[in-house]
């Protein structure tokens, strides 16, 4: 199991969030999630400018095996989507925390870190699943 980037926040739904300098938040799925899904073949992205509610459906990632919803870990407005995923969804497999990012959104409210997981706490979630 590869090490989790220490500068990210996580959710128990296997998503990660990175707070950018401009106040936006970049979101993707974790290495554990891409591993469980298998080779990705299609990503359905939201429109830029679209508002998403916390826990609402934000994107769909489809692997050879199955389709999986990506839920918005926080509410906000989509400011960017990773267009490269249209032709190369396997970027998520290859680099889930980098080139495989999915969306960037501008949070509607201040982020309540209490509802998100630190790297250590997320690692514990993954460890439990691997047992």
């Amino acid at each position, binding site marked *: 199991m590869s090490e989790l980037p220490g500068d990210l926040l996580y959710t128990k739904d296997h998503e990660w969030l990175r707070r950018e300098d401009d106040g936006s938040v970049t979101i993707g799925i974790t290495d554990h999630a891409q591993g469980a899904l*298998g*080779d990705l073949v299609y990503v*359905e992205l939201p429109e830029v400018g679209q508002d998403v509610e916390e826990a609402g459906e934000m994107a*769909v990632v489809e692997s*050879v095996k*199955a389709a999986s919803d990506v839920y918005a870990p926080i509410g906000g407005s989509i400011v960017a989507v990773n267009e490269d995923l249209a032709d190369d969804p396997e970027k998520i497999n290859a680099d889930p925390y980098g080139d495989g990012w999915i969306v960037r959104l501008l949070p509607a409210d201040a982020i309540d870190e209490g509802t998100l997981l630190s790297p250590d706490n997320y690692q514990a979630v993954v460890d439990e699943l691997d047992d």
Partner: protein
Amino acid sequence: MGSKTPLFDSHKAAGARIVDFGGWDMPLHYGSQKEEHHCVRQNAGMFDVSHMTIVDLSGDRVRAFLQYLLANDVARLEDYGKALYTCMLNADGGVIDDLIVYYLSDSDYRLIVNAATRDKDLAWIREQAEAYEVQVVERSELAMVAVQGPVARELAAPCIDAEHREAALALKPFYGLQAGDAFVARTGYTGEDGWEICVPAADAAALWDCLMAAGVSPCGLGARDTLRLEAAMNLYGSDMDETISPLAAGLNWTVAWQPEGRDFIGRTALETIRESGDRQRFVGLLLEDRGVLRDHQRVVVDGIGEGEITSGGFSPTMGKSIALARMPAGDYDRAQVDVRGKLLNVRIVKTPFVRNGQVQIDTQEKDQ
């Protein structure tokens, strides 16, 4: 924890992701399902299919028994070792299972049936066999490895007993032979050339290691499913089951109507369906929009009716999504599929999608 095949430790050693499949702990993939898929289309891959059930039948009246039990006619098997694909039907014409039957001698046949249907298959076969005094012996002590791909036989040949190697290489498609302790058949479930090899459980790991050393890549059930979908080979439980007749699952070609006097289980029901004029279509779909077709999605044909995807997924060879679907009768070549509330465009295409490494359909054709 499920049942384990004799190759379970070999899978773990090769880095398999293990999943439950019909009560068995089986490899889903060993890293990348897509790479395994391409390996079979372009080179050679191997699958542990030891979870499948091998049943040997023997007795003086075994041939008459199989002519009654199976919708295809074992009378078509004229040479020893010849194999036949067939459905085993219930009295309503529904499919209890699909299977391969091998003609080993006038009093010996071998069936290979699905893993998930093992219990009901054995119970059904035993029940029907009684009147024919046919002995039904499950060969659970045998393991089975499918080696598939354009160079599969060439790479696997050194792993076959030297004395029988030449004969194994000379096997024509859909023939098998006993090669020492192994039974080698030129069959498969991928649309590629290759062998399915049955060996005693104790020899399974050595065969696997030999194939690995020969350059054959281990492949999981994931790739097995995308390969068989591209080859448009039916999957029991998805494309047909006990409520679906072979006529509604694209398996008309496996039903032997001649001779008319042959009474097989389900025949009367099938004849009724045939005479009723019910002409459901079982077709291939090619997705023209972006997305992925999945099992059970609704297919809409404007002005005609609705059908359902029975097997859908992504074709690694074509880089597009494909599906098999049960559709209403009618003359049409386009439809739409309801994918999470959006209607996506599909074209009805002739199957198989892929055969012997080559895409069989024109994926570029657009609106005329």
